[in-house]
C-alpha cells in the first residue's frame, strides 16, 4: 500500500527461507511456511517482500488484534441501514482466497482466531452464519507465519498445518553482515532508488518461478519416489499422512525449479529438510542421526511439542486444579551429589515442568489461562448476547444486529433504530498469569550450599516458565527468627533471579512466620487481582524450630498451612530433606495444605542444555 517493501532479492543470506517461500509460489499445494527464529533476522521483511516476485498473488496480512467479524466477514452495515438489504461484507478470508495469508508473531495469535483458522483451513470454505445472514465462499490460501520461539509455543494443531518449517538465525560472516547493514541504510536513505536497483533481480526470480509453474503440471511421480518419501516420513515417526504428502508436493516443486520433469532421491531429501522438522516425534530422533534433517535442536523441540499436546487435550474441563509434575524417576544419591554440584557451580536450572490446569472455564491455555474478564481491560475478541445488564457494549456488533431489522422500524430521523434486543456485549480476553510466591527456607538446616544450589536451580526453572506465561513472582525468605519479603510481587523475572542469586543462609527455621507472611501477601494479591491465580511454593525440609503463636513451631506451621488451603491458594512443597534421616515434616505439611509434593532428590539431572533450550525455545 505505501510501497514500503524492502526488495526480496536484496535480502542477503536467509536462502533457506527464500527457497521455502519460492517453492510455495511454484506449488501452492505444499501448504505454506512457518518461519521461526530470533528477533531481527528479517523474517517479516522477507515475507512482505514476496509481492515483488509474485504478481499473481498478493500478501494479505492478518493483524494480531483482528476481531472475528473482520476475519470471516459480517453483515454489510451500510446496505442494511441505508437500503434495507441484507448483504455480506467480506472479511479477510475472502480477500485471502488464492492469495498469501501472512501472520506475523503467529504464536501470539488469540486462541479464538486460531480456532477459526484451523476450521476454515480444513474445509477450504468459509461458512458464515451470523447476524441474520448466511454466506459461504471458498478460501484457499498459502499460509505463511513467522514467530520468535522465545515468546511461546505454537499449538500443535496449528503447527501441523504449515507445510514447511524453516529456522532463521543472524548471519555470522562479517562481510555479509557489513553488506546487510549497508543495504539497509541505502534503502532507508532512498527507498525508490534502491528498489529500482533490485528490480531486475526480482524479475529474474519471478521468471524462474513462472517457468517452474509450467513444468510442474507434467511431473510424473513413480513408485520409487513414493516409497522413499513414505519411508522418510515413517522414520521420522510423523503423525498422520500429511508429512509424506507435503514431501511429495515439495519435491515436485524442487524438481520443477530445476527444470526437470522427474523427481530424484536428492529432491526428496532436500524436501525433507523443509517438510519434516516440525513433524518429527520424539521416539525416533535419537536413532536417525544420518537423516539429512536439521540438527538435533529441532528434535528436542518436538519433545516439548508432544508433551504440550497432553496439556492441550485435557485442559478445559477439569474439576480440580491440578499441577502436573514431570518426574524423571528416582536417582541414586551418587548422581544427586553430582548434579547438585553442577548446579551450584553454574546455577543452571533443573527440569521441573509445571502445568497449570485451571478449573475456571476457559478455552485452552496458550498462556496459563485465558480468563474471560468482566472488567474493561483486555483485548476485545468477539461479542455475545448480554447475560444481564450490558456493561461493555460492542457497538459494531450491536449495529450489525439491528441492521437487518431496519425495514420495520421507526427511525426517528436517524439512519438506524436500535432496540434493546440488538444490544451485544464485548467478550474480552486478558492474559492472566498466576502470582507465584516462593517461600524459601534459608536456615542452617537446609544444609550446605549444595542444597541451596538445588533450590535455586528448581526455582530458576519455574521462573523460566513464569517468564513466558507473564506470571508475577514474589519471594519470601525465612531464617533465624523471622521471615522477610526479599522480593515484592513483580513481573520482573530478572529481579527474581538476581534476588535468588544473593540469598544468604544460616540460622534457625521460622517456618510458621514464613507461611504467615506468604498467606498475607497472597490474600492481598487475590483482592488486587481477582482474575489471577495465586500459587505458593514452599521450599523447605519442614524442620520448624521457631514458633509463632504457640509453643509448638510445627503446630503453628500446620495451622497456617490449613488456613492457606482454606483460602483456596494452591500450593506445592518441595521437600529438601536429606534422604538419610527422614522426619517427613515437610510431607506432613504438604498433607495439611493439600499440596503437591515433591522431594528435591527426585528431581533428576537431565541434560541441562536440553532443558534450558526446551524451556525457553518452545514452551
Amino acid at each position, binding site marked *: 500500500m505505501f510501497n514500503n517493501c524492502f526488495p526480496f532479492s536484496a535480502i542477503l543470506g536467509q536462502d533457506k527461507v527464500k527457497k521455502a517461500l519460492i517453492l510455495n509460489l511454484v506449488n501452492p499445494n505444499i501448504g505454506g511456511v512457518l518461519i521461526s527464529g530470533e528477533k531481527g533476522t528479517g523474517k517479516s521483511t522477507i515475507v512482505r517482500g514476496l509481492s515483488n516476485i509474485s504478481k499473481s498473488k498478493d500478501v494479505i496480512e492478518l493483524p494480531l488484534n483482528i476481531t472475528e467479524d473482520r476475519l470471516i466477514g459480517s453483515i454489510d452495515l451500510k446496505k442494511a441501514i441505508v437500503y434495507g438489504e441484507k448483504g455480506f461484507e467480506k472479511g479477510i478470508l475472502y480477500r485471502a482466497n488464492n492469495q498469501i495469508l501472512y501472520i506475523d508473531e503467529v504464536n501470539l495469535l488469540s486462541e479464538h482466531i486460531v480456532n477459526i483458522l484451523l476450521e476454515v483451513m480444513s474445509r477450504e470454505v468459509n461458512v458464515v452464519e451470523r447476524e441474520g445472514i448466511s454466506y459461504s465462499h471458498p478460501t484457499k490460501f498459502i499460509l505463511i507465519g513467522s514467530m520468535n520461539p522465545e515468546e511461546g509455543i505454537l499449538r500443535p494443531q496449528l503447527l501441523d498445518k504449515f507445510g514447511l518449517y524453516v529456522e532463521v538465525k543472524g548471519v555470522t560472516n562479517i562481510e555479509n553482515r557489513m553488506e546487510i547493514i549497508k543495504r539497509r541504510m541505502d534503502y532507508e536513505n532512498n527507498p525508490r532508488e534502491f528498489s529500482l536497483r533490485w528490480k531486475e533481480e526480482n524479475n529474474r526470480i519471478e521468471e524462474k518461478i513462472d517457468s517452474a509453474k509450467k513444468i510442474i503440471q507434467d511431473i510424473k511421480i513413480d513408485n520409487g519416489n513414493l516409497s522413499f518419501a513414505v519411508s522418510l516420513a515413517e522414520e521420522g515417526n510423523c503423525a498422520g499422512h500429511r508429512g509424506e504428502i507435503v514431501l511429495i508436493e515439495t519435491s515436485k516443486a524442487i524438481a520443477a525449479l530445476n527444470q526437470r520433469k522427474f523427481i530424484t532421491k536428492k529432491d526428496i531429501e532436500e524436501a525433507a529438510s523443509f517438510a519434516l522438522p516440525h513433524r518429527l516425534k520424539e521416539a525416533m530422533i535419537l536413532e536417525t542421526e544420518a537423516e539429512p534433517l536439521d540438527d538435533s535442536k529441532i528434535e528436542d523441540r518436538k519433545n516439548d511439542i508432544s508433551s504440550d499436546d497432553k496439556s492441550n487435550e485435557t485442559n478445559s474441563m477439569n474439576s480440580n486444579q491440578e499441577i502436573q509434575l514431570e518426574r524423571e524417576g528416582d536417582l541414586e544419591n551418587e548422581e544427586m551429589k553430582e548434579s547438585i554440584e553442577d548446579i551450584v557451580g553454574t546455577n543452571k536450572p533443573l527440569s521441573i515442568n509445571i502445568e497449570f490446569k485451571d478449573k475456571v472455564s476457559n478455552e485452552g491455555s496458550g498462556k496459563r489461562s485465558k480468563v474471560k474478564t468482566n472488567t474493561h*481491560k483486555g483485548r476485545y475478541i468477539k461479542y455475545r448476547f448480554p447475560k444481564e445488564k450490558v456493561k461493555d457494549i460492542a457497538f459494531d456488533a450491536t449495529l450489525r444486529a439491528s441492521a437487518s431489522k431496519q425495514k420495520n422500524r421507526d427511525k426517528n430521523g436517524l439512519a438506524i433504530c436500535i432496540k434493546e434486543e440488538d444490544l451485544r456485549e464485548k467478550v474480552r480476553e486478558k492474559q492472566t498469569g498466576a502470582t507465584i510466591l516462593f517461600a524459601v527456607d534459608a536456615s542452617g538446616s537446609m544444609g550446605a550450599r549444595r542444597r541451596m544450589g538445588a533450590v535455586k536451580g528448581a526455582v530458576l526453572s519455574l521462573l523460566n516458565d513464569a517468564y513466558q506465561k507473564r506470571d508475577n513472582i514474589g519471594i519470601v525468605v525465612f531464617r533465624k527468627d523471622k521471615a522477610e519479603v526479599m522480593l515484592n510481587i513483580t513481573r520482573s523475572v530478572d529481579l527474581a533471579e538476581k534476588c535468588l542469586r544473593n540469598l544468604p543462609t544460616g540460622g534457625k527455621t521460622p517456618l510458621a512466620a514464613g507461611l504467615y507472611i506468604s498467606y498475607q501477601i497472597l490474600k492481598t494479591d487475590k483482592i488486587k487481582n481477582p482474575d489471577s491465580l495465586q500459587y505458593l511454593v514452599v521450599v523447605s525440609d519442614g524442620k520448624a524450630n521457631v514458633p509463632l503463636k504457640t509453643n509448638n513451631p510445627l503446630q503453628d506451621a500446620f495451622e497456617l498451612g490449613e488456613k492457606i488451603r482454606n483460602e483456596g491458594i494452591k500450593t506445592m512443597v518441595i521437600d529438601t530433606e536429606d534422604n538419610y534421616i527422614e522426619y517427613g515434616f515437610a510431607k506432613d505439611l504438604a498433607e495439611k495444605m493439600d499440596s503437591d509434593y515433591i522431594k528435591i532428590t527426585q528431581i533428576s539431572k537431565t541434560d541441562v542444555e536440553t532443558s534450558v533450550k526446551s524451556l525457553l525455545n518452545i514452551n
Partner: protein
Amino acid sequence: MDRNKLVYPFTAIVRQEDMKKALILNIINPKLNGVLIRGEKGTAKSTAVRALADIMPEREEIMGCVFSCDPNDDSFWCEDCKNKEGKDININHRKMRIINLPVSATEDRVVGTLDIEQAIKKGEKRFEPGILAEANRNILYVDEVNLLDDHVVDVLLDAAAMGVNSIEREGISYVHPSRFVLIGTMNPEEGDLRPQLIDRFGLVVEVFGEKDIDARVEVIKRRLKFEKDPEAFIQEYEDSQNELLNKIENAKDILGKVTYSENCLRLAAEIAIAMGVDGHRADITFMKTAVTHAAYRGDTQVNKEDLFVAAKLALPHRMRRKPFEEGVIDFDKIDELIEEAVL
C-alpha cells in the same frame, strides 16, 4: 506566553547527558526508531520528553489533515490527501508535537475504531482515528510502557516498525500512515519489557538519580527557581535553547550527506558478533546512530567519537541473553575494539 505552555527548558536539565543525547538524535533522525528510557522515579524522564517540544524544528503539514501529511512527500499520503490530488492543499507550518499515550489506553483509542455517530446517524461506516493517527509525523510518548497491556505494546511497535497502522477490527478495515518517534519510559522495578519489544526500540538509556552532591543541589535550585518565576527562568535559557535548535536544524540538513568508511561497517559487524547479538538490528542501529551523531557534530564523516556514542546508546539492550540471564556487557572490550580500529 500561555501559562499552560510553560515548559521547563531542555537545556536547563542538569546532566543526564545520555538521555538528552538519545532524544536529540531521534529528533534529528526519526529513523533511529525511538528511545526507551529506563530509570527510577524522579530522574527527569518525563521532564526531558516534555521539554523536547521547544527544541523541535518546524515543518510543513497539510492543513486539516488529521494525519499531518507532508505536502512534499506524496508517497506517504493518507487516503484523503491522495484523493485531493494536489488541489485545495493548504500548508501549515507547525512543530512536531508530543502525543501522549496513557497507560490506561484501550486498543480502540490507540488504533482507531468505528465512528458510531456516523453509523447511527447516517448509516455510514467511517473510521474514527485513534492515537496512532494523531501520532503520524510526531512523537508518541508512552510513560510506563512496561505497564501497558501486552497487545497494545504489540500494536504500537508494529506500527512503529512498519510506519503504517492497518486496522481490521470492529467492523473497520482501514490503513493509514503512522510514522512516529516512539519514546517510552519505564521503571525497571515494576517489571521489564519482553526482550522482543526492547529490541525494537532503537536506543535505550538508563538513568539514575544524581549521586554527586553539587549536581543534586543544582537540580533543586533550578527547579525551585523555575517554579517561582517560570517566564524569567525560560528567558535565562533562551539562548542555549536556540543554539540547540540551530544545531538540530543544521544536523537535519546534512544528515543525508554523511559518509562512513568501509572499516566502520566492519567494526559494526565485529562488535555485533563479539557481543553475540540476536539478529541484525544492533549493527544497523549502531551505524545509523553513528551517522546521526556525526551530523549532530556538524561533520559529514563518521569518526570515533560517533562510534563510542553509538555503542553506548544502541547496543546495551541487545546482548543476546535469555530472559533473565546475566547479560554482562563488556564495554571495555567494545571500547577497545573501537579504539584500535583504523577508520
